[in-house]
């Protein structure tokens, strides 16, 4: 099955989820201790350490196979990528008229002030290389372009690095202009660099899907899968050009204005990895590529854990500190922010809420309960989804009531890492259906969106990855990669 044969619409996917669940249950029946309600419980088995050890080893082996063989949560990674890229892009466009006052030569946080602070705390910003206004305009423009490219998933891995450079450079130039929303964008821009977030819903994925059938047709189903890959890799002029440009820029940065040793290591390291990936795809498509693929999966999966934990930290911190506050205890806390001049774009609208004591009390207690409870609900899919919905609604209302649209958008993008795969796939299908109708079928979503994530070919070196993960030097999927329909099983947390 290839990308365009993937069944459209959510129904089949939902089915598959159910199937896999039933499968699990069936497997349970054969387990020595499998307890099913409709049976008389067997006598408790004697404690056999060897058996437990074997079971633990089997579980560990299974877990290892999962984290090495798959980039888990491809849809979640993609939606986080799209969410943060869009938030930062919209923010930069909104602030276009104010850009020079925020981060540029007209900022009250003058360049010399920034230089003194950044010298003390070693924050990274390419804007501190020179005071030049032209340089500032270039960096701002580059930040806009990198956000747009990351949003579309064009050369995702390379653009994620540029995106991070843009976010860090602008924010660290004027650290006191930011708020909580900027803070979460700052963190996520760093984390995204380490994820394979372009597997689905990206131009990279679409390119991979397009080259896959071509390669497959050229070689026939039985041909060695690597020949067409090499042929197609060698044609990737854009990748080679990007990689070379990156080397030039890095060389100038390293020997010119100067990178700290740590950052030089980070950037040159990322650059070298891109080159290595291109090389193994081209020259060593067997085991070396399989190993690289596994390492990339591991790094992705580790980073996804960090992203999920980060969201939990945010809510846990916000919730637990509130519990100590008298206003959160007496049920009036939600009233006060709405009466602050800095957070009241619609005072008349706020008055509708603040007039009702019960409403304020529910909002106050509800906020604390949801924030404190959220990390624990991850153990239960259904409760987690309900809370996720509540939090997204709350952020939407904060966007309007407190006049914090970009903060709210960033928080929703972070929440999205916990959205269920089934819902994301459904939304993707809807979106691509809409795009297809708008653009008569040749649209970006129509095929790109269906390319699966990670599983295909992982570990065997066959197919998959490709541009989505190489950025500078995309390898090519060749076509024999099956396109598994997304199942909930693949999401780390759905």
């Amino acid at each position, binding site marked *: 099955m290839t990308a365009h044969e993937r069944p459209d619409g959510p129904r089949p996917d939902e089915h598959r989820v159910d199937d896999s669940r039933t499968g699990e249950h069936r497997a349970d029946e054969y387990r020595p201790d499998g307890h099913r309600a409709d049976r008389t419980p067997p006598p408790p088995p004697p404690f056999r350490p060897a058996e437990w050890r074997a079971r633990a080893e089997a579980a560990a082996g299974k877990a290892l196979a999962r984290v090495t063989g798959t980039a888990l949560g491809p849809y979640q990674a993609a939606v986080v990528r799209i969410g943060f890229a869009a938030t930062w892009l919209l923010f930069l466009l909104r602030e276009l008229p104010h850009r020079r006052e925020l981060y540029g030569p007209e900022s009250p946080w003058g360049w010399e002030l920034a230089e003194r602070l950044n010298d003390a705390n070693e924050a990274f910003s390419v804007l501190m290389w020179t005071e030049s206004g032209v340089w500032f305009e270039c960096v701002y423009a580059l930040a806009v372009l990198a956000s747009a490219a990351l949003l579309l998933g064009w050369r995702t891995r390379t653009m994620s690095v540029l995106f991070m450079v843009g976010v860090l450079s602008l924010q660290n130039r004027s650290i006191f202009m930011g708020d909580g929303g900027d803070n979460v964008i700052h963190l996520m821009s760093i984390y995204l660099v380490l994820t394979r977030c372009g597997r689905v819903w990206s131009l990279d994925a679409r390119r991979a899907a397009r080259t896959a059938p071509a390669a497959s047709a050229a070689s026939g189903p039985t041909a060695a899968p690597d020949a067409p890959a090499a042929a197609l890799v060698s044609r990737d002029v854009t990748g080679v050009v990007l990689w070379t440009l990156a080397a030039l820029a890095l060389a100038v940065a390293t020997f010119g204005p100067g990178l700290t040793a740590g950052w030089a290591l980070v950037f040159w390291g990322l650059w070298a990895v891109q080159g290595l990936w291109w090389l193994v795809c081209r020259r060593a498509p067997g085991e070396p590529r399989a190993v690289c693929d596994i390492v990339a999966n591991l790094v992705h999966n580790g980073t996804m854990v960090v992203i999920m934990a980060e969201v939990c*930290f945010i809510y846990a911190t916000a919730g637990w500190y509130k519990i100590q506050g008298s206003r959160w205890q007496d049920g009036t806390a939600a009233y006060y922010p709405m009466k602050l001049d800095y957070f009241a774009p619609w005072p008349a609208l706020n008055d509708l809420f603040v007039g009702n004591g019960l409403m304020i009390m529910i909002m106050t207690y509800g906020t604390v309960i949801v924030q404190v409870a959220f990390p624990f609900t991850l153990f239960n899919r259904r409760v987690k989804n309900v809370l996720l919905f509540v939090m997204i609604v709350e952020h939407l209302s904060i966007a309007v009531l407190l006049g914090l649209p970009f903060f709210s958008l960033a928080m929703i993008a972070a929440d999205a890492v916990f959205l269920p795969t089934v819902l994301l796939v459904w939304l993707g299908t809807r979106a691509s259906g809409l795009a297809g109708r708008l653009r008569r079928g040749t649209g970006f979503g129509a095929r790109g969106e269906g390319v699966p994530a990670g599983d295909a070919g*992982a570990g065997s070196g066959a197919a998959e990855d490709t541009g989505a993960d190489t950025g500078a030097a995309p390898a090519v999927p060749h076509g024999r990669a099956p396109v598994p329909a997304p199942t909930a099983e693949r999401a780390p947390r759905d």
Partner: protein
Amino acid sequence: MEPHEERRGGGVAALSAPGRAVVAIAVAVVAVAVAVHLTMVFLHVAPDNTLSKEHGRTIDDYVLPEFEQNWKLFAPNPLQQNIHVHARARVTKDDGASETTGWVNLSGMDGANIRGNPFPSHTVQNELRRGWDFYSGSHDNDHRAIGLRGELSQAYMKRIVLERFGTELNGGTVDRVQLRSAVTRVAPPAWSSEKIDTKTEYRVLPWWSVGRDDLKGSK
């Protein structure tokens, strides 16, 4: 089962010994890195505790500056007062006479800009508000600067005021500026029996002289 399931099973086991060694090292490195990172960030966001008091330096070295974060959003209590920053200037006219302007409510101007604006700019929502937080957090009660941050924050506030006033005001050149905070507590909700004094309290800062370098780089 779909074919990829089988192939996945073959993943690590199908590799040669060196290949498996690389994967084993990668597993260890990633696991340790994730554990260290999450521990550090946890200790950074958690309240001061036994561990973070002992290893505060290590935690700061790791977390700052790029992983710094603060999620005490409206906690432990939300801000319950409107803090407005007012400013005035002493200007020297061409004939040598000097004049002190009236107080200008800069925060009020920010507020007016925010009202009815679905997308308030950071320049009106954060610049002065956070600048003032930064200033008051790095000065003692006698307006003395605390460390580098105190010094930087004073320069920052002066520049914020000068950018809004300009160097020419009321037909004269701005020589000195003065700031004051006007703090008004939010009245308790209508349905509450609480009584709170909502009289505005002022805190006046010393005059700051304006030098030629103060607006360097500005428009």
